[in-house]
């Protein structure tokens, strides 16, 4: 057992090194004054300065954030409605059919989603640009929200709703005062997942964006196709830090969110 222990530690360490090398490699060279991703010359912050002075990049960043926030907010609303609808469907068959349709989007490769949305959006006459990207992001985020909210709804005891009804709550009160607070961790997780999906998406956006509108992923792709530029490194360092902050923030909030609710249940 001891012998395999040593080997396995080496194996795991190797996997971790390979997983993290590219990320730290990018960060390391973002401080290189040499202008290339080999041969480190001198420490410099020039590339960061360039990122902060690039108004075009700033607009693209704003675009990305606006699309991400708007699309995840709207898809959260549709997704919560969808999850509520699915739990209320009585027949098992319809329910499974709905779930399968929901999952089609999740398993579909990005290329298919992108290509089919391109056809759809041009068929209904949406101009390619901000709106086509926003609509697509809403569309592919909905099923994720449904999947995050559904388990919460299913674990909720139906007696809670019955009790509220018996005590005279209207349908609206039942929804806003009983159901929504109960499933709020799921809603929050869904919103967060939708946000990361939107921020991370490249392929779908690449298909449905016209020439005038660009998000960060698409911009990085077109920069990278032209070759190495250390501005991308600086940008990716900033994105890495933002991602890290987002993930840590998410864990803190979900931890904090789950604790009081547990305490409440015990009272």
């Amino acid at each position, binding site marked *: 057992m001891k012998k395999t222990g040593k080997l396995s530690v080496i194996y795991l360490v190797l996997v*971790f090194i390979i997983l993290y090398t590219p990320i730290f490699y990018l960060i390391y060279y973002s401080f290189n004054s040499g202008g290339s991703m080999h041969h480190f010359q001198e420490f410099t912050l020039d590339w960061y300065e360039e990122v902060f002075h690039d108004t075009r990049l700033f607009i693209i960043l704003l675009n990305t954030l606006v699309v991400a926030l708007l699309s995840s907010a709207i898809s959260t609303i549709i997704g919560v409605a969808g999850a509520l609808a699915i739990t209320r469907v009585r027949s098992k068959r319809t329910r499974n059919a709905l779930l399968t349709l929901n999952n089609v989007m999740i398993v579909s490769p990005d290329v298919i989603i992108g290509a089919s949305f391109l056809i759809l959006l041009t068929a209904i006459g949406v101009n390619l640009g901000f709106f086509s990207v926003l609509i697509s992001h809403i569309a592919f985020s909905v099923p994720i929200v449904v999947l995050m909210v559904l388990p919460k709804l299913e674990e909720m005891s139906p007696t809670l709703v019955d009790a509220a009804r018996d005590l005279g709550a209207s349908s609206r009160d039942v929804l806003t005062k009983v159901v929504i607070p109960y499933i709020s961790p799921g809603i929050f997780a869904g919103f967060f997942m939708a946000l990361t999906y939107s921020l991370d998406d490249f392929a779908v956006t690449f298909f449905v964006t016209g020439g005038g509108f660009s998000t960060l992923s698409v911009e990085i792709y077109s920069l990278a196709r032209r070759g190495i530029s250390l501005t*991308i490194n600086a940008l990716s360092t900033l994105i890495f830090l933002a991602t890290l902050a987002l993930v840590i923030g998410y864990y803190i909030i979900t931890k904090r969110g789950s604790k009081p609710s547990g305490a409440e249940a015990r009272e």
Partner: protein
Amino acid sequence: MQAKARNIYLIPYMLWIIMFVIAPIVLIVYYSMYDIDGVWTLANYKRFFTPVYLRMTLRSFWYAILITGVSLIVAYPTAYLLTKTAHKELWLLLIILPSWINLLLKVYAFIGILGLYGPINSFLELVGIGAKQILFTDFSFIFVAVYIFIPYMILPIFNALEELNPSLVAAARDLGASPWATFRRVIFPLTMGGVKSGCRAVFIPALSLFMITRLIAGNRVITLGTAIEQHFLVTQDWGMGSTLAVFLIIVMGLTMFVTESGNRVR
């Protein structure tokens, strides 16, 4: 009252399903039957079965199988060893963390690492093998693809191993099974569900990715995804692109069916 409330929730959701799940698939099938001049024809399908497209499809499958296989071989031991570590939740989080970082940035990093003057080549030169063209080869393509997909393979296998009842393993050992036999006859079959969902999570994207092929493999490797992107955005031949997409949807359906039905039996 209740029936009415149900309808209200169903409306936005059904609208979404019809608009963005059903309509796109119908439109793809519809477009696949028109050629580049907008004439109704089945020529696209005929073209699909010509050697050029068939060879491309087979190669794409071959790459996807290789990527899935290599991912599985690397991911299974990793997942297994992770379940044995103390603080396994933390380690798992660290495995997943890179997958939160924008895919393009990771791919971009490899352009530097595998480049002609990158650290890998410096190392090869140091050892005495000499610098080699690594970027724009099949090897670099598969390596980077495995790197990108590996967290999606590790996660389901890790979960399956966590669900495995350890007393079953202990029982097998008590009854005299060697470690290898225990793994082959007990652990692996019982975690098959995780392996299958991992393979599904890797195989379908591996068939259809296109930015990795463009950035890492130059234009040497053409997958189904690359071909679809090319037809839609470069040559504007939406008909042929849709035909390839129809084929990809069929493959996706089959993969889902195979991996799902296996799970149900268990």
